[in-house]
């Protein structure tokens, strides 16, 4: 079964990409995921300078998903050159994820990623920013539009905008981001866990992002809503664990998916398993290309 897709001008051998922040901090891990069968790998979101991230605990394994507050650790964009190059030279399709405080920072980071040889750049629009209450940059349509425009005019490679689900209405944000070459939905849901015996939040940062099987119905909804207001390809993220989940996201309107927490649930082998499972579904349901399934649920 041919699982290839064309996404914002990039040919992918299959529609399962590694989601940002999961095994995307070292070049050799990215290569390993690529060799395990991913259609592409998105790097950990990288900022200008090195960051240690929050102190442990930074992850909570919840009954139905994962909660994390890593605090965007990373070596900073300069030192990250080596990691990207290792992955790119190893043959992987690499998408460079970046986060910044505003349009200029995003543009600078994207340019560096382009120099390192990534196939596309993904803008993590879910990091905290100063304006308005310390919420995420991605909840402010104007900020989203400015960042996307700044990066679009700074680089020649495709630009993907990754949005946060923590908004009342995703549609104006998707519209604001539609200058990008693809929309990535979604980042994690803001959530928390309290240990009742410790009588305190588990994460050192108190709040974290919720991912994994529990959040899939929210991700599918966002992709479905986005599909109705944009012509740009959409990449579905959130709880993708099996081939059925992939098919659901495709029918909601995604052209590809990203896989994060499932690396915990099913191991790095998840990419190979997804290919088997999706092929099987396509055979049974009479699809010969992935593209045929995209948006089918919109009737």
């Amino acid at each position: 079964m041919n699982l290839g897709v064309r996404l914002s001008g990039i040919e992918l051998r299959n529609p399962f990409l590694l989601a940002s922040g999961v095994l995307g901090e070292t070049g050799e891990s990215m290569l390993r995921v690529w060799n395990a069968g991913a259609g592409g790998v998105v790097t950990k979101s990288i900022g200008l300078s090195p960051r240690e991230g929050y102190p442990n605990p930074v992850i909570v394994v919840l009954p139905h998903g994962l909660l994390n507050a890593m605090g965007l650790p990373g070596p900073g964009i300069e030192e990250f050159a080596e990691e990207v190059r290792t992955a790119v030279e190893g043959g992987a399709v690499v998408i460079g994820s970046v986060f910044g405080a505003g349009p200029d920072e995003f543009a600078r980071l994207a340019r560096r990623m382009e120099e390192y040889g990534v196939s596309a750049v993904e803008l993590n629009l879910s990091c905290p920013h100063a304006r308005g209450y310390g919420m995420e940059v991605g909840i402010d349509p104007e900020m989203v539009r400015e960042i996307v425009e700044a990066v679009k005019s700074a680089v020649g490679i495709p630009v993907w905008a990754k949005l946060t689900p923590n908004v009342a209405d995703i549609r104006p944000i998707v519209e604001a981001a539609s200058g990008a070459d693809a929309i990535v939905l979604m980042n994690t849901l803001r959530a928390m866990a309290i240990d009742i015996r410790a009588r305190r939040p588990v994460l050192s940062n108190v709040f974290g992002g919720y991912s994994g099987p529990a959040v899939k119905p929210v991700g599918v909804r966002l992709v479905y809503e986005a599909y109705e207001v944009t012509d740009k390809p959409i990449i579905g993220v959130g709880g993708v664990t099996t081939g059925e989940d992939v098919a659901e996201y495709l029918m909601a309107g995604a052209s590809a998916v990203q896989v994060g927490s499932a690396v915990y649930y099913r191991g790095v082998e998840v990419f190979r398993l997804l290919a088997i499972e999706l092929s099987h579904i396509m055979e049974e349901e009479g699809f010969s290309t992935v593209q045929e399934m995209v948006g089918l649920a919109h009737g």
Partner: protein
Amino acid sequence: MHRCVRIEDVRREARDVVSILFRDPCIALPGQFYMVWLPGHEEVPMSVSFTGMLKGITVRAVGPTTRALHSLEADDRLWIRGPYGRCYSIRGSRPLVVAGGTGIASLAPLVEEHPGDVLTLLGARTSEDLFFVERLRASSEVWVSTDDGSEGHAGPVTDLLERAVEEHEPDIVYTCGPEAMMVKVYAFASERDIAVEASLERYMKCGIGICDSCSVSGYRVCRDGPVFSDELTEIYEFGRFRRDPSGRRVPI
């Protein structure tokens, strides 16, 4: 979520080492580790050093978190998740165990559980830093070395390798301890075509194989390891560098 366990016993093992014992119904195998959390402090990885009905960890006080763990007493509570990671495999009939410092924490239950004829080489800085010697003697022959010669051979534990291989003729070598020591053990055994299992340490955050902070040459110490064997040839970073919490390389 963590499991909250009640501490049954705290044993002082050496100058700055204690064992903390608690009841945990989960199966724990030698080589695996817990992520251990004392609320208000950092969560840190600790090898399983007792695998029986009472599970346990053995902690050297080296910084704020391990010092906080040292203040615990019987009846206090401790938060754990895991055990995680790949255990030592039980193989060979004449295993040689080479431990440096706190490395014996992860190897001690292996020595106890291994059905073969075990020789343990145990290195420490001084006799005050030695621990588990009696425990190990109950199930293996033990040769001790200290850097200052206060007990056993004076010098690094690797000095004992030559004689150990000659006299014991091991068919498998297990090692855990300072990485420079393990590199030597690995080189020594490899030259003689003896298989090696070495337990690595890297900075751990998630403990479950997703954050990449502990990765070495594409292998996750928390999930593909901490015990590695044939992979060691591919792990370029072994003995050369580790990464700090931001992911930057730091020489070892």
